[in-house]
C-alpha cells in the first residue's frame, strides 16, 4: 500500500514537473522582432525539444529519491543534446545571414544560439523544481514552485539592452562633397552623385552616447554594432538593394569620446521610433566587457 502511494505521488510529481517545463518553454518561445522562429516547423522543433527537456528534469527527481544515482548521467546526455540545438541554430542562422541585406553578424547569431540552449536548461530547472517540491512535500507546493520557477525563467529570458547603458539621440546627416558625416563623425566616401541624392533623402543618423567606461568598450565591439544595424534595418525597413554597395547602414566610433554614430537608411523615417528601437537592441553577451571591474581588482 505504502509503495503504491509513493508511486502515485511520484507520477503526479513528474506530471506536474513536465507540465511546468512545457509551459515554461512555451512562455519563452516567442516570435519577436528577430523574426525567428516564425515558421511552424521552427516552433515544432523547439517545442519538441522543450518536452524532452521537461521530461528529463521531472524524471530526475524520483530517480534521485530512489537512489538511482546513475540516472543523473542522463542529464549529461541532455546537455549534449542541447549543445546540438545550439550548433543547429548557429549553422542555420549563419546560412540565412548570407542572404540578408543587413546581416546579423556572427556575434548576434552566437548570442541567439546560446539563448536557445540556455532556455532548454531553464526548462529542465522549472520541471526539476516543480517535480521535487510536489514529490517531497505535496502537489500544491509543486505547483507553487513551478510558478516561482516560471517567474525566474521570465527574468532570465531577456538580458540587458543598449538603452540601459547609453543615451540615444537623433543626429544630423551631412554630406561634404563626397564625404558623409553623422554629427561630426566621418562615415564614408560616396563617389556617385546618384547615391548622394538618395542619402540626402533617406539617410538618417543617430548618436549613441555611452554612460560609462564599460559601456564604451561594449559599444565599440563590432558584433554589437552590427546587431544595432541589423535591428534598425529589420524593424524600420532598409532602403537598400544588391548591387548598391554604398547604400549601406554603418556605425562608426568617435574615438575622442567613445560615442557611436549610426548611419542608416530606413523606410520608416520616424526618428523617435528609431531611438526606441536602438534602445531595445539587446546587449550581446559576447560584447560585454567590464574594464572598470578589472581595474578595481588590480588585474
Amino acid at each position, binding site marked *: 500500500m505504502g509503495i503504491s502511494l509513493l508511486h502515485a505521488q511520484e507520477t503526479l510529481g513528474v506530471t506536474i514537473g513536465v507540465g511546468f517545463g512545457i509551459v515554461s518553454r512555451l512562455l519563452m518561445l516567442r516570435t519577436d522582432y528577430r523574426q525567428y522562429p516564425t515558421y511552424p516547423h521552427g516552433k515544432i522543433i523547439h517545442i519538441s525539444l522543450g518536452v524532452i527537456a521537461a521530461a528529463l528534469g521531472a524524471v530526475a527527481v524520483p530517480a534521485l529519491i530512489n537512489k538511482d544515482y546513475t540516472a543523473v548521467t542522463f542529464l549529461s546526455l541532455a546537455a549534449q543534446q542541447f549543445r546540438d540545438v545550439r550548433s543547429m541554430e548557429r549553422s542555420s542562422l549563419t546560412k540565412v545571414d548570407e542572404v540578408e541585406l543587413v546581416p546579423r553578424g556572427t556575434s548576434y547569431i552566437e548570442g541567439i544560439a546560446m539563448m536557445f540552449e540556455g532556455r532548454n536548461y531553464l526548462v529542465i530547472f522549472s520541471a526539476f523544481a516543480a517535480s521535487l517540491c510536489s514529490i517531497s512535500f505535496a502537489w500544491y507546493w509543486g505547483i507553487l514552485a513551478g510558478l516561482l520557477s516560471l517567474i525566474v525563467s521570465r527574468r532570465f529570458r531577456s538580458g540587458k539592452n543598449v538603452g540601459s547603458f547609453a543615451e540615444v539621440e537623433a543626429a544630423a546627416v551631412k554630406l561634404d*562633397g*563626397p564625404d558623409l558625416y553623422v554629427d561630426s563623425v566621418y562615415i*564614408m*566616401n*560616396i*563617389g*556617385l*552623385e*546618384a*547615391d548622394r541624392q538618395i542619402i540626402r533623402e533617406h539617410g538618417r543618423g543617430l548618436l549613441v552616447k555611452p554612460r560609462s567606461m564599460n559601456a564604451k568598450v561594449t559599444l565599440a565591439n563590432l558584433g554589437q554594432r552590427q546587431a544595432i544595424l541589423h535591428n534598425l534595418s529589420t524593424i524600420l525597413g532598409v532602403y537598400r538593394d*544588391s*548591387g*548598391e*554597395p*554604398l547604400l549601406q547602414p554603418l556605425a562608426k566610433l568617435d574615438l575622442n569620446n567613445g560615442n557611436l554614430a549610426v548611419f542608416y537608411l530606413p523606410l520608416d523615417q520616424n526618428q523617435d521610433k528609431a531611438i526606441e528601437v536602438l534602445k531595445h537592441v539587446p546587449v550581446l553577451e559576447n560584447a560585454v566587457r567590464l574594464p572598470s571591474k578589472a581595474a578595481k581588482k588590480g588585474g
Partner: protein
Amino acid sequence: MPAKIAAIIALQANNVGGGAPIFVAESKEQQQQVAFTLEKILDAAAHELNDGTIILVHH
C-alpha cells in the same frame, strides 16, 4: 578580404596609372554615368578620390 581597386574612372588620363582598368571620361557627367554603370556591374563601391578621379573598390 583586403579591399581591391576594381576600376578607375578619371577625367585626366595622365593623373592615374597602374594595374586597375582605367576609364577616361570627357566630362563630370560622363564620369558619374560610367561610374554608376560600373558600380552596378562590378558590385563595387564608388569613391571619389579627388576632383576628377573616382575609384571603384571591392570591399
